[in-house]
């Protein structure tokens, strides 16, 4: 009951905060698009050069591409891939960051110093080029592998944050009580430490997902990772680099559609993250 109470009160805060609620709604729409969208909208692969670069119409909601195929259906089918990359990156990166951050923070001493040295080095590497290099070396064929690769270079900042949170919590009274009561480390980590860090972790989860989209779209734009052609990054790559749609004035709906969907998604993520921040940190409310 207590849980439900706290959830509903939090839900109320979320709906009161317009920006966060707006972000939340859009994220739900994107989620629906990625999960049930492909079953509702069929992807036509019929090439019809006579009907290329059509404008927005009832038949083609976002016009047609360079070969007369419907753009909207490509966007819907590509959304699954984009979400998969974003959330697999965020999931794996957060997972790694939690394990490494908590381990480093609890162990302390030399192990801690050594791990933080590695984190420092990872933070100094130029992120996008390194991701692009490794994406180029290992030929990537599916979204989840791509997500794991991006995650390998995304966990470092969060793990540093988690480690410093652990350091500040681990000497507090309630943790000392746990030690005195002879509770297991497992209990301390999962029942005492993690619940305290959930707000921090969830905000960072959203930011990692946001950066994963930037990185993945950029790398696909360079043409290093050839994934499915409906992936938004690939759509932009094809439109700008392969068929030269940027030089065709009436091809704008085709070129702008993936860009628009990426930007709105990013915008929703940012707003939602700020909402989550206020949700857990009452002091920042109304700022």
């Amino acid at each position, binding site marked *: 009951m207590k849980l439900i109470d706290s959830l509903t009160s939090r839900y109320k805060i979320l709906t009161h905060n317009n*920006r966060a609620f707006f972000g939340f709604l859009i994220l739900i729409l994107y989620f629906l698009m990625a999960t049930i969208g492909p079953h509702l909208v069929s992807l036509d692969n019929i090439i019809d050069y006579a009907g290329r670069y059509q404008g927005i119409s009832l038949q083609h909601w976002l016009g047609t591409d360079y070969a007369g195929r419907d753009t909207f259906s490509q966007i819907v089918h590509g959304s699954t891939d984009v979400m998969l990359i974003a959330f697999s990156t965020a999931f794996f990166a957060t997972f790694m960051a939690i394990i490494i951050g908590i381990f480093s923070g609890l162990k302390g001493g030399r192990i801690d110093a050594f791990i933080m*040295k590695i984190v*420092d*080095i990872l933070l*100094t*590497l*130029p*992120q*996008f*080029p*390194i991701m*692009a*290099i490794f994406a*180029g*070396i290992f030929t990537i064929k599916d979204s989840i592998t791509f997500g794991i690769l991006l995650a390998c270079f995304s966990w470092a900042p969060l793990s540093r944050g988690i480690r410093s949170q652990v350091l500040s919590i681990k000497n507090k009274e309630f943790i000392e009580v746990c030690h005195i009561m002879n509770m297991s480390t497992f209990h301390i980590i999962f029942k005492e430490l993690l619940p305290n860090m959930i707000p921090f972790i969830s905000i960072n989860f959203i930011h990692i997902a*946001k950066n994963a*989209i*930037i990185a993945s*779209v*950029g790398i696909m*734009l*360079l*043409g*290093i990772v050839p994934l499915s052609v409906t992936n938004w990054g690939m759509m*932009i790559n094809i439109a*700008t680099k392969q068929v030269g749609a*940027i*030089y065709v*004035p009436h091809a*704008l709906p085709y*070129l702008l559609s993936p*860009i628009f969907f*990426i*930007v709105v998604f*990013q*915008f929703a*993520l*940012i*707003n939602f993250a*700020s909402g989550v921040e206020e949700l857990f940190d009452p002091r920042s409310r109304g700022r």
Partner: protein
Amino acid sequence: MKKKYKKYFSSAITIFVAIIISFYLVRSMPGDFIHLRATEIQLQQSLTYETAYNIAKRQYNYDPSVPIYKQFIGYVGGLAHGNLGQSVILRIPVTDIIRKALPWTIFLCSVSLFISFLLGSIIGLFVSFRSRIRWLDSTVSFAAALSQSIPDFIIALLLIVILAINIQLFPLRGAYDVDTVPGFNIPFILGVLYHAVLPVMSYVISTIGAWTLTMKASASTVLSEDYINVAKAKGLRDKRILSKYIGKNAVIPLVPGLAISFAMMLSSSLFIENIFSYPGIGYFFGFSIGNRDFTLLQGILLISIVMIVISNHVADKVHEWLDPRIDL
């Protein structure tokens, strides 16, 4: 004093790791490219295969026949002599490419960083000072969130489509007019500035939101300090309070962010410079990844990491100079 040495030491370790990564990259290159190059040299210059093979080894700074640790020592030795090897595809020394490309990237990134930092902090400062004007605050917050949600290369694409292709106001690609003579003359410099407008705009638009928000937050903490109330009570002009009292103190916490932002721009240059075909290191980065030119790739990777390390040190120095209270 001791901390300072520690910092240099950790930078040295970072660069060393960068060397290891770049070394690994060459070794992960598919195919026996030394053999290929050797047969080519043999045909071109009618030498024996052994001599040609030795030349090829020196060109790539890589010798596959000796054990790995010796290869590594040889590689580092080559680096110490400034030998980054020869580009596999372009067939010119990597150091020459970097020497030509690096100034363009530094130019773009530093100009963008300067403009975006200056504008962002002025806007942030102003908004926090006038936080009672609700519409201003919400408009700026909205714009800042939007600026953060559009990746810089997407902005670059949009700018190209709108300002370079449809309106044809700015050039589409390159760094200077092909008709001008590179050097210190007015037509060339004007051409350079003209060509830099769109890339700089893409960087500025995508980073200005973050500067505005951090400055706003920083300034509002300064605003609640007692000495601001004293200044107001003394009847000082708003302008003076803004610049001398709030601005000066609020800008200090932002300085370490400059190095981070510079590193981000350096890493984004991979996308931006490719979109504008701007001949900086980002362009050659993309080129070398796309064409699997591993010698060029390792050279550029190494130089970018060194640049990031240097920019971190510079930001530390500036921070120390601005705020003598902190001891780094």
